[in-house]
């Protein structure tokens, strides 16, 4: 071959012509390289745009110095100030947080108990029991909401209790739908637990109770934290069930936002929503982090 061979590592039995063609058509797509096809990239980009545009607009408009909020008129914190000075909004927010904290504590305890129980024991009718446990997760929220509303009205649950107790009906309802979620997350963690560790502790003389506290619970910790964070966001975020169980004085933030939005669209709502978005996104991100952690150290032997 007359051409210089220094650049090519090995002499190739190809003509000059095909060498030119080669440069033109690389890099070629493999048949299953779907992510490198422009039309699929376009669809995905468009989907994410549609998914994020409304939320980003909402957040941006909470800082927009305009009541009508149609075009950008400059940056301001004044709607956050207004929201902060809106007593009913702050009350709703305080209610939401109080309910979420109490609901998280109780549903985490209940969820952990159920998870350990279902992991540890076999008993007649277990499938039915598990079915009932999953029911709060599968039935439409509105059905559970009206059921809780009818229940509290029917049993004559007092609605004139002093402040923290006035939230009891909402809290009870929140716990009822949160703890099965906690149980699912904790149970997923238990799948990787090596029961020989438990036997070893008992073999060394630990009681049932000591074994639970010293061996099982420490192993479950990441799962419990993830479950608790999920319970917290579920409670903080819930609208439908709270809507039916809330009294006129026990409004939570989502219910308050709903009534404000129904009435008129104001930047204050955007500010309140942004705060709620921030809290739930952070709590959920932490939950995901702990769940990943729980999965990462699945082996109880380690």
């Amino acid at each position: 071959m007359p051409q210089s061979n220094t650049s090519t590592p090995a002499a190739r039995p190809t003509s000059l012509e095909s060498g030119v063609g080669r440069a033109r058509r690389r890099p070629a797509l493999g048949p299953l390289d779907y992510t490198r096809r422009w039309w699929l990239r376009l669809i995905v980009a468009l989907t994410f745009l549609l998914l994020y545009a409304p939320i980003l607009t909402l957040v941006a408009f909470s800082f927009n110095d305009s009541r009508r909020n149609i075009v950008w008129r400059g940056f301001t914190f004044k709607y956050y100030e207004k929201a902060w000075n809106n007593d009913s909004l702050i009350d709703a927010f305080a209610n939401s947080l109080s309910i979420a904290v109490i609901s998280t504590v109780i549903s985490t305890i209940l969820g952990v108990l159920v998870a350990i129980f279902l992991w540890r024991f076999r008993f007649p009718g277990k499938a039915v029991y598990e079915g009932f446990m999953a029911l709060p997760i599968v039935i439409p929220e509105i059905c559970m909401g009206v059921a809780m509303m009818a229940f509290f009205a029917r049993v004559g649950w007092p609605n004139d209790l002093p402040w923290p107790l006035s939230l009891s009906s909402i809290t009870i309802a929140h716990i009822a739908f949160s703890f099965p979620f906690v149980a699912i997350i904790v149970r997923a963690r238990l799948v990787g637990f090596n029961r020989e560790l438990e036997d070893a502790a008992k073999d060394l003389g630990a009681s049932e109770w000591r074994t639970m506290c010293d061996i099982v619970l420490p192993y479950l910790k990441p799962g419990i934290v993830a479950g608790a964070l999920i319970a917290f966001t579920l409670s903080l975020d819930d609208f439908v069930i709270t809507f039916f169980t809330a009294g006129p004085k026990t409004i939570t933030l989502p219910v308050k936002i709903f009534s404000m939005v129904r009435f008129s669209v104001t930047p204050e709502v955007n500010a309140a929503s942004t705060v709620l978005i921030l809290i739930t996104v952070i709590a959920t991100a932490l939950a995901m982090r702990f769940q990943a952690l729980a999965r990462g150290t699945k082996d109880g032997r380690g």
Partner: protein
Amino acid sequence: MDSWRKNPLVFWVLNLSPSAWLILFFIVPLTLVWVLSFGEKRGLLEVAITGTFDNYARALQPLYLEIFWKSIWMAGLATIACLIAGYPVAFAIAFAPDRWKPFLLLALMVPFWINILIRTYALIAVFRTRGYVNFTLEWFWDQANGLLTLLGLGGYQLIGARYEPLELLYNNFAVNMGIVYAFFPFMVLPLYANIEKLDRSYMEASLDLGAGHWRTFFSVVFPLTWHGALSGIIIVFIPALGAFFIPDLLGGTDSQLIGNVIERQFKSANDWPFGAALSFLLMYITFGALALRALVAGRNRGLDV
């Protein structure tokens, strides 16, 4: 796993409080609603349980049947829209390079963590007459108009004298978009899980045997992943039926879904027995859908290779 007899004390310590909670604050309320659905309204808050089927008969009258049908139709339409939009997205994530996958999944999930009510509310700013969709369309109209003027056709007003904003809010379209927007990730995640675990060599075999990409999708990919589609359909369709706040915020007067009717019975009309009957009918539809999925999943277990 131990038999419960091995350690009855631990057995009861573990399950007593959660079981009690579930029974007292979930099963009992549901049963109460079920019982209420056989009652009659007497006075403002007075209900007599008479064992009547009147509430169900009323729920099956043309007026409410129409609302049921409309709810199913609207939720169904939104579910199909989710399915059509969800497949390419799930496909793209499943075929993305491994280091990209967690980020794409996260990007899909984050909006989903945000309160559903706030997300619904956020759509208003996008869809209203002076919202982003209309702004975008107006921009296109301006460009088209400018082009026509340039071509010397400006005087004919071929696309109207000025841009007429589309009425995108407070109608059925808005409700449909609201449902799609609220529940879209519910569809993508199970689809993704199924496409992800689909053995690539099935697709390669199909291509190898001469089928094109579309044919491969409809003959191989879809039949082997429709379990995921079915899960997605059910977890979008069921909450969509009961999501009363979406028609409330985005719909017009004629966009009422069954959830709105139930809400009205309990909140303003105060006809609890009728609301209870409607809510149990909604539950039966839910159970029917779940049973259908279990049946199909059971029959096709052999496909889970």
